[in-house]
């Protein structure tokens, strides 16, 4: 009986360590739509970046720049407009993952 309880305890701790049980959205900034163009004429593109943080120890936030570069690489000869960048965190046990999800419209010249 005792062994079962210990197993259940370890299982719960392991599960909560490995998976995010809560999410929080920090902000969703939206850029302007420029140049004026029909929304249907643009190609929707998206990029993601993330960073795993244990107990707040993080030395940089370059995952944002990486996502931004990734977005630009999908639209090499056009304008990326109407960019929505959702910044959110996925919480785990004494750890969390910061995410950024950028969505935009690639409008060709």
């Amino acid at each position, binding site marked *: 009986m005792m062994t079962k309880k210990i197993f259940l305890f370890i299982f719960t701790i392991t599960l909560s360590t490995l998976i995010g049980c809560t999410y929080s959205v920090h902000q969703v900034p939206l850029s302007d739509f*420029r140049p004026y163009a029909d929304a249907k004429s643009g190609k929707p593109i998206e990029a993601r970046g993330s960073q795993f943080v244990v107990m707040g120890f993080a030395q940089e*936030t370059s995952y*944002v720049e990486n996502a931004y570069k990734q977005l630009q690489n999908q639209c090499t000869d056009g*304008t990326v407009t109407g960019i929505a960048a959702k910044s959110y965190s996925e919480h785990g046990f004494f750890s969390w993952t910061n995410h950024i999800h*950028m969505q*935009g419209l690639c409008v060709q010249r």
Partner: protein
Amino acid sequence: MKFSFLGVLLVVLSGCVSLNSVSLTSVPADRSKRVAAASERFIFMGFNFDNDYVNSITSDLKTQCPNGTVSGVLTKSESINYFLFIFWKSRVSASGYCVPGKMASANDIIRKRKPTDDGSDPAPAETTEPAVQ
């Protein structure tokens, strides 16, 4: 003893970065000239009497692009927390692209609008907008 001292020193001096906010604007097609600016302030126990250090970023970007438009600006606001959150550093950084030429102003766009027969608000006219192309 030496190792423990080094360990403490490392903990005190290394900062943990957290991202406060991100903002961005439309990315231009012409990304040949990159511009960047950053500003930071060291804050002890929360004593901070103004946020003027942020103002220099705009002028820095303007200086790097005197005859063009800065577009595709990615702005990050970060906090670098040092030992036990007693002191920390606030950093704001912005990077974008300098596109030669002037951007069409809102007035230019309105002037280009053609009035409709029934007096209703016309749809925006197509603009070339050379700065962001």
